């Protein structure tokens, strides 16, 4: 994974609360392989009407925001289903950072594994940022992960992120490679199971193979 240090660009005021992962990518698109790209599926049923016509009210459809690498949403962004395809859709569309007062637990974890930055800010700060972004042109923001800051014009907001997720993004860690360095500890733990929890290993009865 490529390290993430800063994300700079236009920020789109999405403004929605409780954006569950079914909104980010409806389930019917998930038979696709990643190679086909998930960008077109992002927010599909919010961005397009039943006939495939773009919904002009949806912020990402406004010309000034279509290329925004930063989204600002209200609380509980990414709740619901564990589908990592929600992160693929955001990434393939070009989103590199989502700013919100809170995130779904599994979504935030999935985001980190794919280099998507989730920046947590307060409710009042979110409202201020949404107001500012909605009001004028297409302001650029800079999200600085090392400094944990969001700046746009004179506004500077400090954001929160789990320290491990921050480090993982800054360093571009590959989780599996890191864990395999603990292989001796894993093997040792596995050997203890026979004495500590011998019943924990499934042993099917002969009737079922």
């Amino acid at each position, binding site marked *: 994974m490529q390290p993430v240090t800063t994300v700079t660009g236009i920020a789109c005021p999405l403004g929605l609360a409780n954006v569950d992962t079914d909104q980010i990518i409806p389930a019917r698109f998930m038979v696709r392989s990643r190679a086909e790209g998930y960008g077109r599926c992002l927010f599909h049923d919010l961005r397009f009407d*039943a006939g495939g016509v773009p919904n002009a009210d949806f912020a990402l459809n406004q010309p000034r925001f279509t290329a925004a690498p930063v989204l600002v949403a209200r609380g509980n962004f990414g709740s619901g289903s564990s589908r990592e395809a929600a992160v693929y859709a955001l990434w393939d569309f070009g989103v590199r950072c989502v700013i919100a007062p809170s995130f779904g637990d599994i979504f935030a974890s999935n985001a980190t594994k794919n280099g998507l930055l989730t920046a947590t800010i307060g409710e009042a700060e979110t409202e201020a940022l949404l107001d500012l972004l909605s009001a004028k042109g297409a302001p650029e923001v800079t999200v600085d992960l090392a400094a944990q800051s969001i700046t746009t014009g004179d506004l500077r907001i400090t954001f929160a992120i789990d320290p*491990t997720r921050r480090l993982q993004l800054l360093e571009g860690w590959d989780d599996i490679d890191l864990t395999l360095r603990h292989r001796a500890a894993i093997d040792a733990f596995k050997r203890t199971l026979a004495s500590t929890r011998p019943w924990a290993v499934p042993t099917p009865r002969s009737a079922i193979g």
Partner: protein
Amino acid sequence: MNARTLFDKIWDDHVVATRDDGEALLWVDRHFVHEGSHHAFRTLDDRTATVAEPALTFGVADHYVPTLGRPMIVNQDIAGMIDRLSANARKHRFRLFDLADPNQGIVHVVGPELGLTLPGLLIVCGDSHTSTHGAFGAYAFGIGASEVAHVLTTQTLWQRKPKRMRITINGTLGPHVSAKDLALSVIVAVGANGAHGYALEYAGRAIVALSMEGRMTLCNMSIEAGARCAVIAPDEATFAWLRDRTYAPSGPAFETAMAHWRTLATDAGARFERELALDATDIAPMVTWGTSPDDALPINALVPIDARAEKLAYMGLTPGMPLADIAIDRAFIGSCTNGRLDDLRAAAAVLRGRSARVPGLVSPGSSAVKRAAEAEGLDRVFIAAGLTWAASGCSMCVGMNGDLLAPLERCASTTNRNFRGRQGPGSRTHLMSPAMVAAAVVTGRLTDVRTLPPLES
């Protein structure tokens, strides 16, 4: 040693290593995969990695399987998803319960049913409703594709320990009031993200009194309050339910296991960061009116006056209208939330001798549940009422298999999510218990099951 919670004890039993940042590497006892896990297997292919512990890995075909016309699969995309899971199971040599297997079903129904789910285990699956297995006193939670790949490769997962919240529910549930009503009441009390960062423990007399099926329904829905997981202390009901299950320990091993399981309950004086109490006696049958599971109210309430306009517009409701005036087009009974034998019995008890005003689909939570239901004639009750009796799968809960509502269709559903479009683009979902769906089927509108006129005998 300090007084520990049930969750603390399971956590401590699984720590392989700890890191300076406070994260722990945890051993995974059971890993369930399904058709949706294909991204993770692709990661293994890219790394030329293999599954570290095939004996602890179990596959189930559930998300995409057709519920009608099996074993024919008309849609080639869907057939491809199921074939891909079979190919990965063969390649990586783990046990798969595929479409033809008598134990096929929804992963969160099948795992417990086979005794793969046990107290004290750490269980993961690439599905958010993995919290279901916490009903047995297991630490069980959903993960994304990257973490599925991590578990397949290493049989471990890095986790930061969540905070602990205890929800104590005393009192007694009234007639026709079920675990689903309890679950929706908990979500309303906590909020759709109110349990974020917490491991929940349910305790109290109403929890002890719940059947294992009811406990699964409650733990299943805990993710809708944002919780990492939910646990219930294993007790005699848990042990009785698990004894003689196919993959559960047998003979002396079961006794050894049970001795360990009895030590798992939360110690007196153990600390929870948050405590919440509800009284089961106060709980009425619940229905959702909006597009988030915490948009739930007792059936005798009104659509909130101050509801957000976009929710009302999407759901086609007017503020202040009685919930019991909402007419439905369709019904669905099934899912990992409410597709178990107890659930089908509760719905059939209402439908026996009555007819459906609207079409509906009944999809048992597993093929074993389907056989058991047929053995006691429940299928004939549903069919006689006018509903469709189908095969087992995730079906209309997630709509991946093509079981969908038409745009603007309104469904009384025993599932877990009333999100916009969850049951198809433009679909309108009202969540409720199996008995409440059955009552809505009989009258054609949302109905308090307790007020249905008795049948003339």
